[in-house]
């Protein structure tokens, strides 16, 4: 496609063309209206003048007879001006006047109202036909009298209007072209820059952002939205990359371990006891792998959005009490205590299963990782459930070492495990799953300082978000 075609298809061009057409139509209509009404006004004035002249001549005729009219015409014809006169006798001979070459038929039909006819002036040697507004009267004795006014003034006026109309249209074309040029240059430049940036981003450079000029116009607003979208996409892709890196590490490592163990067993001497041991550890390792895999799948499924079928009216306090009770013996065995504080029942539409799993994960984490500094002190896990600001507020606090503020966001990600917890069992998916459950219920998760220890606060809206 040629560059002309490209220009014609731009919005700027189309808009300019539409504006130009609309303004032209408006200007032409306006000028036509003015010229029509002035024309009418001028004609009215001419007719009045002609009637006045006829009245004057009639007065002369009444006092001095036909000869007085002829004399008056003779006299008036000699004066310069736009007035036209002619008087003929019965045979059509001109007695006096300053008009020649009027259509002969005109004089045969006297009494007609003022009409426009072409004529020539006798005094002037011009051969050019001119237009006049004339009235023909029949006088006693077969005489005919013609009184009229030249229409030159009116014509000149029309010409002035036509010229101004032409100028106005020309000026408008000029202005339209200039405005279109600037608008299209500006708009096309911005759009071309958007296209160029998006092509760069498509080719893999995700750091690219659209230019924001700071004028706050619609292009800036568009660029802002698109930039926010790009920000989100970049973050998601980073997340995806992190996940695949982590899958590579956290699933491949145990798989390698699994394979090595079997290989070592096969390489060694044939011995039933050793084989058995190797197989048992293989089953243990594959069970852990399945657990990790299930947790990953579950997070993925939750994040893709679970159907409402699993959602029902549940009482959060009851779920928390049940799960706390489930973990209580384990906690006691480890010398830890679980305290549950539920001042009043809190009912909401949620997945009982997922909410229970989330609470279990939080308690499990606290049991695994919260060890009070200095030792000696028992681990205390405090779980609170209350309603606040239209939310279910579920908090699980421990009195361990807590998580440094800088690391809190990171541990919500999949497979992220703090260095000090690497040595302990766990997949690094527990908190990610809690975060995913919170998101599924349109809620939030926040990690804070329990002074000492970590407090995880999950807020879920009571009225479905």
């Amino acid at each position, binding site marked *: 496609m040629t560059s002309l075609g490209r220009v014609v298809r731009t919005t700027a061009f189309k808009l300019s063309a539409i504006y130009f057409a609309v303004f032209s139509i408006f200007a032409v209509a306006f000028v036509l209206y003015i010229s029509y009404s002035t024309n009418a006004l001028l004609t009215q004035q001419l007719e009045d003048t002609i009637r006045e002249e006829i009245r004057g001549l009639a007065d002369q005729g009444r006092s001095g007879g036909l000869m007085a009219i002829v004399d008056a015409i003779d006299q008036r014809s000699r004066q310069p001006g736009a007035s036209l006169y002619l008087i003929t006798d019965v045979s059509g001979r001109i007695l006096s006047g300053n008009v020649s070459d009027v259509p002969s038929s005109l004089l045969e039909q006297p009494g007609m109202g003022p009409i426009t006819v072409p004529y020539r002036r006798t005094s002037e040697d011009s051969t050019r036909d001119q237009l006049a507004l004339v009235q023909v009267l029949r006088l006693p004795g077969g005489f005919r009298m013609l009184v009229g006014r030249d229409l030159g003034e009116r014509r000149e006026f029309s010409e002035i209007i036509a010229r101004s109309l032409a100028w106005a249209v020309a000026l408008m074309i000029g202005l339209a072209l200039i405005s279109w040029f600037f608008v299209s240059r500006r708009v096309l430049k911005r759009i071309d820059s958007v296209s160029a940036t998006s092509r760069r981003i498509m080719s893999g450079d995700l750091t690219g952002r659209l230019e924001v000029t700071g004028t706050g116009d619609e292009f800036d607003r568009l660029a802002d939205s698109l930039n926010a979208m790009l920000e989100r996409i970049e973050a998601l892709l980073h997340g995806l990359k992190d996940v695949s890196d982590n899958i590579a590490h956290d699933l491949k490592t145990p798989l390698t371990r699994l394979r090595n163990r079997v290989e070592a067993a096969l390489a060694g001497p044939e011995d039933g006891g050793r084989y058995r041991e190797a197989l048992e550890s293989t*089953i243990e390792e*594959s*069970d852990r792998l*399945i*657990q990790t895999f*299930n*947790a990953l*799948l*579950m997070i993925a*499924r939750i994040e893709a959005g*679970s*159907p409402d*079928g*699993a959602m029902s009216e549940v009482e959060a306090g009851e779920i928390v009490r*049940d*799960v706390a*009770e*489930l*973990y209580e*013996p*384990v906690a*006691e*065995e480890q010398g830890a205590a679980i305290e549950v504080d539920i001042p009043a029942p809190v009912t909401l539409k949620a*997945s009982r*299963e*997922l909410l*229970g*799993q989330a609470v*279990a994960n939080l308690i*499990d984490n606290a*049991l695994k990782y919260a060890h009070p500094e200095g030792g000696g002190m028992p681990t205390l896990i405090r779980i609170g459930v209350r309603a606040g600001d239209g939310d279910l507020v579920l908090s699980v606090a421990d009195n361990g070492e807590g998580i440094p503020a800088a690391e809190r966001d990171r541990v919500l990600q999949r497979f992220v495990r703090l260095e000090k917890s690497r040595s302990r069992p766990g997949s690094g998916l527990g908190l990610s799953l809690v975060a995913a459950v919170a998101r599924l219920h349109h809620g939030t998760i926040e990690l804070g300082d329990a002074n000492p220890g970590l407090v995880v606060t999950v807020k879920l809206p009571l009225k479905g978000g």
Partner: protein
Amino acid sequence: MRILLIEDDKEAAAYLVKALREAGHVADHAADGDTGADMAGEGGYDVLVVDRMLPKRDGLSIVEELRRNGDHTPVLILSALGQVDDRVTGLRAGGDDYLSKPYAFTELLARVEALARRRLPGEVETVYRAGDLELDRLRHSVSRGGKPVPLQPREFRLLEYLMKHAGQVVTRTMLLENVWDYHFDPQTNVIDVHISRLRSKIDKGFGEPLLHTVRGAGYMIRDVAR
């Protein structure tokens, strides 16, 4: 008991059939949905084990058809899908239990035997007995050798489920599902600790232990003398 396995994975099916037979059951195998539906329709099975995704026919539709025809043979649904909503759809279709792949054979066997047990008469017994241990479901009381054993409500339900399936292996996930009504994986040995608490109440100080740990599988209430 007679078990029909409808499963398209040949290797998995061969292993299951062999293992079920070794466990003392009669096991038949159907490799696709149509054959499976025909064999199940003929009746005579105590338990059906149905894979959800089958060639020719969806496993759930077989269960639905059986239920429409008034056949209430217990069905264990096997599936690679293991999420909450999949379980719900599986049970809504008429399945009695749901096991997600990959599973341990001991888990499958325990569940199949528990399902078959459901059909046996005596479902409505109000008192469970194992040796000198007695659980009265109506009075919510437990005694051993005539001596009352006080239990917490959850411990009572735990023992009730174990005694209902006395002589059968009950796995940890079965306990979590039936006593706590949760289907997630607790990842920690939470159930074991509950069991050891229960054991200290019903076995400690009494002669023969009744609550046994079955290695690699789960737990069982068993009266050795019987």
